[in-house]
């Protein structure tokens, strides 16, 4: 079935792939990894992983999609079966929780249009006696706003609580926005992508310029990029680099295959693959500079300890600067140790603070929101920041949904007379209804489970089978011919070596390492404990009843592989029986097995 519409603009296609690859992980996962794994030294394993694993697998996806001009199911049915449905399921699961994160971002965005920002102060307690809410005072205003006023979170994953209507409304709104952009498939997505892919870059630049002019920013950047080559000896660093590249490029979802299938067959997908992968990595670097300059400013602004010292010892106002703090504290400790011991001093070092800065939702909704509070014109910055996060996530959602819709179109689930709007509407509605479980009070914990266990393993399995399927089952000579047809020359030695040997090996290593990590560390998630006093107020817990769901999520998409194989074997056997019964030999079905 030929595509009746095409992304005839090369710019739209490139932006779509770029928007899909550049997502929330570039903003809140890469800076954290970079900083915990030795700063500038982390770039070494990151670049190696990009060259050996990221770009080759990405190129395969684009090439196969462009040549076969189908979504993931059609592609894998032609080359080596069974994978397409698995990719579809993974895309579906990821869409569910990804859009939930977007709904949280939307909630924060809606709340940013007021001065003062609602997370800047604690609400009064119920009796309005003049004291603030105890939970808020024990943690911090931003944590309270996130955990209580937004999520209204319970203490345990098994305690489901009630549906949060505000979150449900935001979820409905974000699915409505996604539907609006995906309503006619690539036709509407191609128009929306111009805004959603380019707006984040604009905002990042604004934040970069503003962040670099803030006091304390340079210290944050120096801390981020100071290379610590010793950390490279830890194998965990290499594992994290490889997985980060993999998920950052959004491989094995089927989304890139779908986008490439809308290309004219004579497009140079090699150039596209290298371009998009490089721009994605550069965006991660760019974002980490912007993020860390703001974090450095926030750390420099934190002077609770200084105030305590000044008040306790009646020293002149603002007489201790941040740099003098250590010396003054030592002096006081020597002269009046008992008084110093009585003070509730927190550890007050820039590095320690930056180490506590989290990744993921912790970074965006707790740390960064607090940093924004201190910037002059806070509501404007909050609007910009959450607007950027929303558009970033939206462009990734397009890829996810294309990974669902295009295979369904190829499968021919609905009759051709039914318009595309109905299919996309049904998909969005189904996703929205399935995602309502995340609007429960324990929804955030379920999201952590999904994020940690559902996607990673399956994607690695599928990517491994992708590369092996193309390199060995389909055959490298045939694939080289196709590429020569499309781009005008055969793939060079680098591509052939990485496809045949390096990438499968790397993926296998990552898979084994992941299983090992899973087996070693007990299954856990981070819970919110109101009694715990800390910057993020989170503790780890184990969960028992939800273990079954976790295991199911882990392997459900991967189960498609043997399941479909079994079904096809049974169908073939029944067909053979039919032909014997008929007595007339029929033409063998070509290509599909």
């Amino acid at each position, binding site marked *: 079935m030929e595509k009746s*519409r095409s992304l005839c603009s090369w710019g739209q296609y490139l932006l779509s792939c770029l928007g899909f690859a550049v997502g929330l992980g570039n903003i809140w996962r890469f800076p954290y990894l970079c900083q915990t794994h030795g700063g500038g030294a982390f770039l070494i394993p990151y670049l190696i992983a990009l060259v050996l694993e990221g770009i080759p697998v990405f190129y395969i996806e684009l090439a196969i999609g462009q040549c076969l001009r189908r979504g993931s199911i059609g592609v894998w049915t032609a080359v080596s079966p069974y994978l397409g449905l698995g990719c579809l399921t993974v895309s579906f699961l990821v869409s569910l929780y990804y859009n939930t994160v977007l709904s949280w971002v939307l909630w924060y965005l809606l709340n940013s249009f007021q001065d003062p920002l609602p997370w800047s102060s604690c609400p009064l307690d119920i009796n309005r006696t003049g004291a603030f809410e105890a939970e808020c005072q024990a943690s911090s205003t931003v944590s309270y706003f996130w955990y209580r006023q937004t999520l209204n979170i319970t203490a345990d994953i098994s305690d489901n609580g009630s549906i949060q209507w505000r979150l449900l409304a935001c979820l409905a709104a974000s699915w409505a926005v996604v539907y609006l952009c995906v309503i006619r498939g690539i036709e509407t997505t191609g128009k929306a992508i111009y805004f959603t892919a380019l707006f984040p870059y604009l905002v990042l630049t604004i934040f970069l310029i503003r962040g670099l002019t803030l006091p304390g920013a340079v210290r944050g950047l120096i801390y981020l990029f100071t290379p610590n080559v010793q950390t490279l000896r830890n194998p965990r660093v290499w594992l994290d680099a490889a997985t980060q590249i993999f998920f950052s490029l959004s491989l094995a979802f089927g989304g890139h295959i779908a986008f490439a299938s809308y290309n004219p067959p004579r497009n140079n997908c090699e150039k596209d693959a290298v371009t998009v992968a490089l721009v994605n990595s550069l965006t991660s670097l760019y974002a980490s500079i912007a993020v860390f300059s703001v974090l450095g400013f926030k750390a420099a602004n934190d002077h609770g300890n200084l105030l305590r010292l000044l008040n306790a010892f009646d020293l002149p106002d603002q007489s201790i600067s941040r740099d003098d703090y250590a010396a003054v504290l030592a002096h006081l400790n020597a002269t009046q140790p008992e008084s110093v011991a009585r003070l509730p001093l927190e550890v007050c070092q820039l590095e320690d603070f930056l180490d506590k800065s989290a990744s993921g939702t912790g970074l965006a909704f707790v740390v960064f929101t607090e940093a924004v509070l201190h910037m002059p014109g806070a509501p404007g910055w909050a609007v910009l920041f959450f607007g950027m996060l929303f558009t970033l996530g939206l462009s990734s959602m397009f890829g996810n949904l294309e990974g669902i819709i295009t295979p369904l179109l190829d499968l021919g689930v609905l009759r051709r007379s039914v318009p595309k709007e109905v299919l996309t509407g049904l998909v969005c509605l189904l996703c929205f209804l399935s995602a309502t479980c995340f609007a429960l009070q324990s929804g955030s914990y379920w999201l952590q489970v999904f994020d940690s266990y559902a996607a990673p393993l399956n994607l690695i399995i599928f990517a491994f089978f992708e590369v092996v399927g193309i390199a060995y089952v389909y055959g490298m000579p045939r694939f080289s011919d196709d590429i020569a047809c499309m781009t005008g020359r055969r793939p060079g030695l680098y591509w052939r070596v990485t496809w045949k040997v390096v990438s499968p090996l790397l993926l296998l290593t990552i898979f084994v390492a992941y299983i090992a990590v899973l087996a070693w560390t007990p299954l856990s998630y981070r819970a919110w404990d109101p009694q715990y006093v800390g910057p993020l107020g989170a503790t780890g817990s184990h969960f028992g009843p939800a273990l079954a769901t976790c295991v199911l999520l882990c392997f459900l998409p991967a189960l498609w592989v043997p399941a479909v194989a079994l079904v096809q074997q049974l169908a073939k056997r029944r067909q053979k029986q039919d032909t014997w019964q008929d007595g007339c030999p029929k033409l063998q079905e070509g290509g599909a097995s």
Partner: protein
Amino acid sequence: MLCLLFFLVTAVGAELCQPDAENAFKVRLSIRTALGDKAYAWDTNEEYLFKAMVAFSMRKVPNRETTEISHVLLCNVTQRVSFWFVVTDPSKNHTLPAVEIQSAIRMNRNRINSAFFLNDQTLEFLKIPSTLAPPTDPTMPIWMIIFSVIFCIVIVAVMLLIFSGIRQRRRKSKGPSEVDDTEDKCENMITIENGIPCDPLDTKGGHINDVFMTEDERLTPL
């Protein structure tokens, strides 16, 4: 004699005003934090103003209209700037109860703050909590307003797209000759390329071999 009396008075005064004495309050100012470069130095004149403001606050309390500046005693002034103060009665023998002073200061907190260009956070009366403004609960939270606006826009846009799609399909079903321009462009691109059309992975199951098709046409049905 007079010297002795003077010493006695100051001694009594010193006893009345001591850190953690009964009915004494500690005050802490953060002038440089509040004013930055425009900070003024804290000297005895500023202390006089402070005493005057406290006396003014006490005079507003019924039964205490006769409070004088000399009734307000300051002590233990530090570099921070912080000090303790008490308010004595006209006999200067004992201090006024803390509750009265507390309520008087709370009533006039704004006037005291503005006299020194400070606010509740930079002019702290420890143990005297500030009166908080009543919470402004708008009838409709702001986020709901913006949410409704966005949601309405999205719904309208979706409806427009759906209706335009229906209209397009109706027009297409009426006039089948109307070919899509974009489709044409893409088709042209392929032919203009002038190469072998790239379709090696044709996976239509059950190939229709052209040779056989022409043969079929030749054979006329009986």
